[in-house]
């Protein structure tokens, strides 16, 4: 891993890092990834998770919505709309 990849990951994750944080994380990550290398020796098919059949899925029947309930916790709103930062 490099400083550049730490910065790239921070960008992808929407986290700002100071230069010293980048340095510290790079050194921590390097030793953790070094440890993860033990996995190189593990061979075999990836674990199959649980499975489900369509019969066990949710039926297409309308249930209650809770617009008012979820909107109560919205930090910033404008009328019934959720106010988010500008995208341009």
């Amino acid at each position, binding site marked *: 891993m490099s400083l550049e990849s730490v910065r790239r990951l921070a*960008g*992808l994750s*929407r986290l700002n890092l100071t230069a010293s944080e980048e340095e510290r994380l790079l050194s921590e990550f390097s030793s953790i990834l070094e440890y993860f290398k033990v996995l190189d020796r593990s061979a075999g098919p*990836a674990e*199959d*998770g*649980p*499975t*489900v*059949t*369509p*019969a066990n*899925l*949710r*039926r*297409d*029947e*309308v*249930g*209650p*919505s*809770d*617009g008012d*309930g*979820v*909107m109560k916790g919205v930090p910033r709103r*404008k*009328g*019934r*709309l*959720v*106010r*988010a*930062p*500008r*995208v*341009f």
Partner: protein
Amino acid sequence: MSKRVAVLDGVKIGLEIHCQLTALKTKLFCSCSSDYRDKEPNELVCPTCFGIPGTLPLLNERAVEYALRIAIALGCEVPQRTSFYRKNYFYPDLPKNFQISQYDKAGGVAIASAGSVRLEEKRVRVRRLQLEEDPGKLTYEGTIDKSPYSLVDYNRAGIALVEIVTEPDFESAREAKTFLEKLRAIVEGLGVSDGELEGAMRCDANVSVKGGARVEIKNISSFKEVEKALNYEILRQSTFSGTEGGAEAETRHWDERRSITISLRTKEGEQDYRYFPEPDLPTLELSPEFLRRVREEMPEVSEVKAERYQGEFGLTPQMAKEVARDAKVADFFEEVVSKGAKASDAANWITGEFREEVRTAAASGDGRLKAGDLVELLKMLESKEATRGQAKEIFRGMMTTGKGLAELGKSTRTGVVLDESSITGLVEQVLRESDAVEKAKSDPKAFNYLVGQVLRLEPKADAKLVAKTLARKIKR
């Protein structure tokens, strides 16, 4: 393809269509109503589709069924197991900042792959189909670039989408548009989506000209805009051809108002999505029994049916389309054929002068149309046990009275007069009494009129023999 449209060489277009399964009552992963149009903002949301922590997705069974209908209609391969993946990217309209979608790499299997759609003489390959959730909708105070913030309505968030990805098999904008129209007819015929609804079918495209880089075009909100957007982009890219490097690989945004594509600098690209299996949804098993059930319950779309009639029964494209147009008529046709009638004879009969009556009778579903009887009737015609006129009379009787062939056959004199001397006598009688003889020598209408006169005298007379004799007599 119409040859009148100028087509640039070396144009390759692939499409990504997002089709909402508007026939569903609920969203893809929660029980909120999917009827979100013209609702108050954020009225049809619940903790799940709003991305409230701790909620879990519950897959809509019918969404799987509807996606498979499309897959089957497009001749896709359907895997035994399919799974959901998370596509990770941030955007304010995305409640969880990841989209539950599907993936066909890294161990992922989409719900369908490798289909095709016939477009005139070519086949357009469908790479894959996947089920995924729609994001919410952003609006702005004023314009997107001036608004100090964006406003989000999550009513649309979680609506079930089927993404249909084609190979870059289109060579012109017109071709792409024709495909989209056909696709729309198919999903509507399948009863899974209503393309009429605003935003129900959206399209992204990728375009390259003469081996240049692939350019993605996003935000084409309706099929009407597709042709415009593609033509603009083809023109834009072709101005690069010959210059070094050609067009740049990028994502562009279709600006409907200005009718141009504009460069859209996005931070995240395909390599940044960090796809991985959605841990809250187990892998879905699509058993052969389930697929059979879907297949049995789905309506066959006339476009697809017509293709089958050409292949299976050797009907001409025109005839196949005619028979397949109405599902009930097509069902009747297939029943008649399955009971032993020659497909082309049956198709001719059903789509001929009785077309309207057959459609009405088939729609009534009251048993007036008797496939077995029509088979018999067609056989009588072939073996010359009945004349065309008699057969028509009987068939009309069936459809108006609901009586069967056995009953009607009794009241209609059947049996064909093939005796040449009696026919000659009848022909001579008509020639004597008619004043249209001269006209019949040059006018086929008048000629046919005379044939009809003979048949009125003797309905059992063989029409062909009458025509032959008449022609000889008047030296036509």
